[in-house]
């Protein structure tokens, strides 16, 4: 009898422990851990900003480099900007958006500055919750699309005091992306379109084996180019209308 009673108690305690662990795991986010791990501003900001940048960039790339395309054609539900266009037949196109990489960077930085500010505010609040004294001033965000990544620079002087003092002038974040290659190849294709009226996609594929380049022809002589990375699954697409041969004698 005594043994049975002991067994029962052990089983009850075990069940209670399991329930406690399950509750702990479910509420991990809302529990403050006593003596918690050190807060890394770099990691915090990266995890806060990265989803926004990835999503904004994906939209830009899908729409020919613009969040709100100004001159575009609709294809498969997407509004795709013209990077090179002519309204005439038998003529090569005029470049509409030179330096597309720079334009994407500029727009991405504009769209990210609000988010950077809110992430910084959130970081400051987190420090204050942990008993730190924080002083900060206004921030400025710049974005550089380079090979293999998006380099985000948030210039924001920040001083954190508790037992010691830590000062930050800026935060340099890095987000993996193959956008650089996609955009540079896009610029190259536009150069061919404006000079020769067409481009040979297999030339690029041979030089860049990790890219897939598709050329889709839609009515009225418009081409949709899709440059996709086979390693990151990112895709840049844009429209072009160049050297169009109209049906019949084109009268």
């Amino acid at each position, binding site marked *: 009898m005594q043994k049975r009673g002991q067994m029962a108690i052990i089983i009850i305690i075990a069940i209670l422990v399991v329930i406690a662990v399950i509750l702990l795991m479910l509420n991990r986010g809302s529990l403050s851990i006593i003596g918690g791990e050190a807060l890394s501003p770099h990691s915090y900001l990266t995890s806060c900003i990265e989803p926004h940048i990835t999503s904004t960039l994906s939209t830009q790339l899908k729409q020919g480099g613009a969040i709100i395309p100004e001159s575009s054609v609709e294809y498969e539900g997407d509004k795709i900007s013209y990077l090179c266009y002519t309204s005439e037949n038998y003529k090569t196109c*005029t470049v509409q*958006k030179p*330096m597309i990489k720079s334009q994407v960077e500029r727009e991405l930085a504009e769209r990210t500055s609000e988010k950077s500010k809110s992430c910084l505010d959130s970081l400051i609040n987190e420090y204050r919750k942990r008993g730190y004294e924080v002083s900060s001033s206004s921030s400025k965000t710049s974005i550089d699309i380079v090979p293999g990544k998006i380099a985000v620079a948030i210039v924001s002087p920040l001083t954190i005091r508790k037992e010691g003092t830590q000062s930050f002038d800026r935060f340099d974040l890095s987000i993996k992306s193959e956008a650089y290659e996609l955009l540079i190849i896009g610029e190259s294709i536009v150069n061919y379109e404006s000079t020769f009226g067409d481009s040979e*996609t297999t030339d690029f594929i041979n030089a860049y084996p*990790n890219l897939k380049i598709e050329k889709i022809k839609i009515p009225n002589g418009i081409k949709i180019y899709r440059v996709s990375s086979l390693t990151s699954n990112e895709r840049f697409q844009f429209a072009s209308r160049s050297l169009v041969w109209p049906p019949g004698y084109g*009268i």
Partner: protein
Amino acid sequence: MNKIMMILAIAVCFGLIGIVSAVEPTVCCEKTKNNLYCQNVAASECAAGSAQAPTACDSTSFCRLGTCYDGKEGICTDNTPKLACNVAGGVWNESAPPQCNAGCCVLGDQAAFVSLVRCKRLSSLYGLQTNFKKNIASEEQCILSVQNQDRGACVYDLEFTRTCKFTTREECGAGVNGSSVKGQFFKNLLCSAPTLGTNCGQSTKTTCAPGKDEVYFLDTCGNPANIYDSSKANNPEYWTNVKTKSESCNPGSPNSNSVSCGNCNYLSGSYCRQSKKNTGLSYVCADLNCASTSKGPRKHGESWCISSDKGTINQGSNSVGSRFTKHLCINGEEIVEQCDDFRQQECIEDSIQTSTGPFLQAACKVNRWQDCITQTEKQDCQNIDIRDCIWKPGIAFGNSTDGACVPRNSPGLKFWEGSDALNVCSQANAVCQVTYEKGVFGGKTCKSGCECLAETWQRQRSEVCTALGDCGPKVNWVGDKGFKEGFKITR
């Protein structure tokens, strides 16, 4: 038989007749309402406040095309209007500035034929010293110049640790990773060579190296070592000396999906990629060839023509709505690229003999049909340097009595709108006068034009008609007949 006159009026000659709708004259517009720069459009399409001129854009000052220079990336974009360049933040020049002159930019063991500023930009992005050779005038020479560089271990001290980077002799001497730290170079030795005494050693990790086809071992410092060979993973000699591709495992084979050898070969259809299968390997030689396509198994890079419609090609009887398509095998996938609509492009195909068999290549090329019907001589008609036509012998057409020159692939037409289709098709209209002589006691005999009474004549006229475009009795690309006969014989 009554006297027969066949009359089909010849209604048009190259579109001079038939245009009745009023067309608004175009102007050169600096910016249109659709935010397009420098377009020849109707004046009503111009954005408010933008410059416009009643002439072609090439003749205006505000829409002259020039070169837009990106000072940060060192990239020059031609055929750009000044306004578009200014909006993008570039510097516009009427002709390409000297900053756009290309030379050979050496980037480690690779090269790029780019401008000096671009070279500086690429070098800084890859952490290298700028090495620009302006005396090398061609891309081919540029690539050849880096192919035989000495490569080996560059040993240097970093924060009191003797470490190493596998690189070229030039980079080792100029400064490792773009810094001022110069190392000691050991040709044809790997960083993991024990005699070098560095902190770099063997590991089981693999990687793809930039610009290389193969899978490489990675040492503990992150340097690529030799080509992955599972049988040599713990071989001290294999981790000491540099092995060439031909000295590595299975050099003649693509080693596609091999778990033991990473000696990939792009030209044979394999390339280093992340492994998608659960093989325990991070990287393998991925098979780039296509096992199954619309033309059977094909190699990576091959392309071929497909014209899957109910008509025929190259005989002047293409079906309505049909289109040429070019298929490619790229990265193990069959990609379809359409040639221009309305058969304004046709697909041409040929094969090159290689050591592994024929290699197919196809291209979409312009269908030069426009001046076929004006040719009266067979030799001119079949001149493939200038036009894409076929000669139909024995058919009187136009000024020719012994044959008709018609498009080899009949062009598509917008027959549902406008008058262009009518103008094209009516060129095949024909009038044939048949003369009879009445007999004294009744009856009549055909004296001239008797060939027009034969079915052969009707068939030949029909052939010419269908060859000119989407004219005459035809089926569409899925085999459905048109609603009307497509021709009419009037007596």
